[in-house]
């Protein structure tokens, strides 16, 4: 049983960890074992984050591990978490949606974490929680690039398809094309195929050959190579074709997906004329890597850096400290690099906060994995020619139904130069997802050479009365 939220009232925790994925989980157990009192807040009912998403208990899945890598790394830490909870050193606050972190009014050296509870925040405000340190382990969300037909039913996010599989054990279709870019595609295709779907092709827009051109970062990570080889073997076993420098440039169908057009790309991801091939399928799982989740960090004033794939990640030092004293970060929010690094950074942050234990070895492993992630991000970074896939009537912002043509007009006719002005002039990014879905595309179409990270002072929607009460 999670400790009742009322137990946290009036106490000052040494550490509040936001996010119970690999980074947050590792940080919470390490910090608690080093004697700190920890509050672990997470939106989901169970720890594990997006990566270690599990089927609901009612589904009776016999072997959830079959869909996960490094399942043991997770279960070992989950067991340590249970022990620390039982010992009263970790308050695990599940189904807590953190909407802001601010300096505590009573003591500016402390931090107040503001959250609402229950599914979608329906249970109202949680009591304000105070902590000396806050660790942001808020993870990442999937990057999407629009193309004609991407709003048809049957088109799902690649990470979303895997999450569906992990959480609900359902497939988005029977014959599923997997497309986009990034290392996740291979894992997704492997999971879908292993779960019984036919995957005719995986289309990677990037150039796998580019890996061979950054051999040092790769050679330093034999484990990653083994992992990739494992995916490749799974795909080969299921007869999945792997096409590099190719993209789904259109989806066909009336009520739902019936086929996709797969097109060869040049180095800048421009479609090569005459190379389109129609592939029948009933679902498309598509994604272009992950984007660090920067809320509530940007609201706190934490500095960010550009990542090689054109996004933003938090700046942290050798101990996982952000540029705001007392605020720490670990895992994907510092740059997308996978669960293994997230575990390491979580542990490194906890040791740094506690001021205990050797950190040199952890830091060296961290730096190696970061270098690998940077090389990988560069290989899969969206190239500017992707927008040649668009037609003027292609919806870019699905929430507000804003087409590529309208965004183009705002830029050429009305003086928009960045994502923010496009939003003001077209409403693109003002809807339910607050631009998480269309942000990359809008920024690119705005032609902003040095975009700033989007500011979202409220990390999630919140009922007016819950804001007023909290």
């Amino acid at each position: 049983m999670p400790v009742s939220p009322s137990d946290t009232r009036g106490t000052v925790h040494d550490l509040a960890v936001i996010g119970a994925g690999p980074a947050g989980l590792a940080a919470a157990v390490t910090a608690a074992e080093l004697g700190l009192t920890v509050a672990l807040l997470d939106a989901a009912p169970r720890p594990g984050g997006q990566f270690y998403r599990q089927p609901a208990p009612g589904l009776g899945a016999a072997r959830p591990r079959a869909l996960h890598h490094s399942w043991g790394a997770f279960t070992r830490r989950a067991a340590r978490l249970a022990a620390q909870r039982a010992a009263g050193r970790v308050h695990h606050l599940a189904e807590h949606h953190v909407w802001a972190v601010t300096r505590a009014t009573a003591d500016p050296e402390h931090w107040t974490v503001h959250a609402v509870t229950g599914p979608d925040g329906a249970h109202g405000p949680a009591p304000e929680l105070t902590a000396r340190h806050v660790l942001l382990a808020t993870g990442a969300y999937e990057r999407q690039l629009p193309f004609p037909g991407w709003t048809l039913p049957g088109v799902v996010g690649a990470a979303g398809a895997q999450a569906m599989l992990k959480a609900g054990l359902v497939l988005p279709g029977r014959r599923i094309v997997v497309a986009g870019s990034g290392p996740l595609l291979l894992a997704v295709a492997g999971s879908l195929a292993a779960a019984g779907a036919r995957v005719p092709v995986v289309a990677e827009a990037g150039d796998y050959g580019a890996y061979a051109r950054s051999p040092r970062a790769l050679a330093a990570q034999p484990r990653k190579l083994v992992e990739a080889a494992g995916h490749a073997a799974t795909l080969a076993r299921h007869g999945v074709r792997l096409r590099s420098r190719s993209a789904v440039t259109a989806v066909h169908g009336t009520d739902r997906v019936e086929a996709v057009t797969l097109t060869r790309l040049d180095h800048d991801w421009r479609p090569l004329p005459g190379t389109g091939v129609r592939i029948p399928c009933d679902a498309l799982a598509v994604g272009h890597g992950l984007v660090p989740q920067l809320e509530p960090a940007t609201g706190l004033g934490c500095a960010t850096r550009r990542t090689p794939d054109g996004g933003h990640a938090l700046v942290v030092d050798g101990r996982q400290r952000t540029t705001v004293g007392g605020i720490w970060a670990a895992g994907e929010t510092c740059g997308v690099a996978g669960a293994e690094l997230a575990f390491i950074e979580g542990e490194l942050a906890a040791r740094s906060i506690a001021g205990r234990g050797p950190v040199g070895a952890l830091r060296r492993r961290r730096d190696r994995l970061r270098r690998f992630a940077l090389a990988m991000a560069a290989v899969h970074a969206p190239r500017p020619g992707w927008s040649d896939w668009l037609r003027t009537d292609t919806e870019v912002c699905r929430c507000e139904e804003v087409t590529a043509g309208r965004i183009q007009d705002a830029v050429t006719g009305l003086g928009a130069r960045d994502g923010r002005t496009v939003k003001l002039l077209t409403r693109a990014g003002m809807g339910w997802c607050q631009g998480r879905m269309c942000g990359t595309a809008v920024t690119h179409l705005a032609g902003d050479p040095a975009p700033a990270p989007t500011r979202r002072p409220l990390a999630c929607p919140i009922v007016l009365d819950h804001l007023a009460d909290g």
Partner: protein
Amino acid sequence: MPTRNGHHLDTSDVVIVGAGAVGAACAYYAARSGLSVTVVDRGAVAGGTTGAGEGNLLVSDKEPGPELDLALLSARLWRELAAALPPEIEYETKGGLVVAGDEPGLAALRTLSEAQTAAGVASTCLPADRLRDAEPHLAPGLAGGVLYPQDAQVQPALAAAYLLRASGARLHLGAEVTAVLRGPGGAVRGVRTPRGDLLAPAVVNATGTWAGELAALAGVTVPVLPRRGFVLVTEPLPRVVRRKVYAADYVADVASDSAALQTSAVVEGTPAGPVLIGASRERVGFDRTLSVEVIRRLAARAAALFPVLAGVRVMRAYQGFRPYLPDHLPAIGPDPRAPGLLHACGHEGAGIGLAPATGQLIAAALTATPAPLDAAPFRPDRFVERSPA
């Protein structure tokens, strides 16, 4: 002397620095006066305070005096502009409703509206039992209110963008002004940007909250400072709030000299569906960190005024920095300390509303034609610098 960065980029009759609503209106009226106009901005159109406001065109919140005169002229000009510009600017003559919670508040409100009437403001007093005819979802128990039919609204970023486009001005966006160029006699002759020099015998400072920095480049002081405000934006709703509705204490907050946090309920619907909730005022410099205290108060006050909003989701919050001057009046007109430099800045929270009249005043000054109203109260050099003891 041309320098490496100083090659000549273009020449016009006037360079306007700032592509917000005020800069756009100055460009529009200057161009209509027959001048060739160049507009330069370090960012995009509507990138500063214009893009961070609700787009209010209000007469109701102003006490009789020069600012109200400017607002009344602007209200008339916005009606003309709405006919000339495309409907995308979302001009709505929705009217404002100011409500009072108790009898003393209502009495003060009536006194104000009577004084405003003498200055040309139309209004109707509503007793408590008629408030809900005007706004069906208002909370019960209010003492009464005053309806102001001249209050209107535009979508500020779109209004600025279309106004600028209609002006036909040459646009240099993403070009930061790094110097104000002066001639041998000290007269202003243009501005320098990293892309080149923009030459003109007149330069208009329409840089809003950042106007002090541009003035400093010309060697003069304009004491504009930021006054921060937050706005909450709800999920899209059917039209539950018809007008701009605000509590009577808002008028006092607007005129206040206090640096401390002030919040009053200001609630309005928009054509796109979301309800906008303001208004807070605090002087905290350009601090962009979230103040939970501010948004809590805004949420509580809005829910008290419109109980129907209590269960609605707030999608986002944003903040802006109103450019204020010590006497809460804008600086509009030529600066005698720097011949050729004109200011159109310091409109605090009323820049969208006051933009057209400001543009007309600037155009009149540029063409040496009679001004539509007395510009003396807005003289940019009215803030006498304290002489060293």
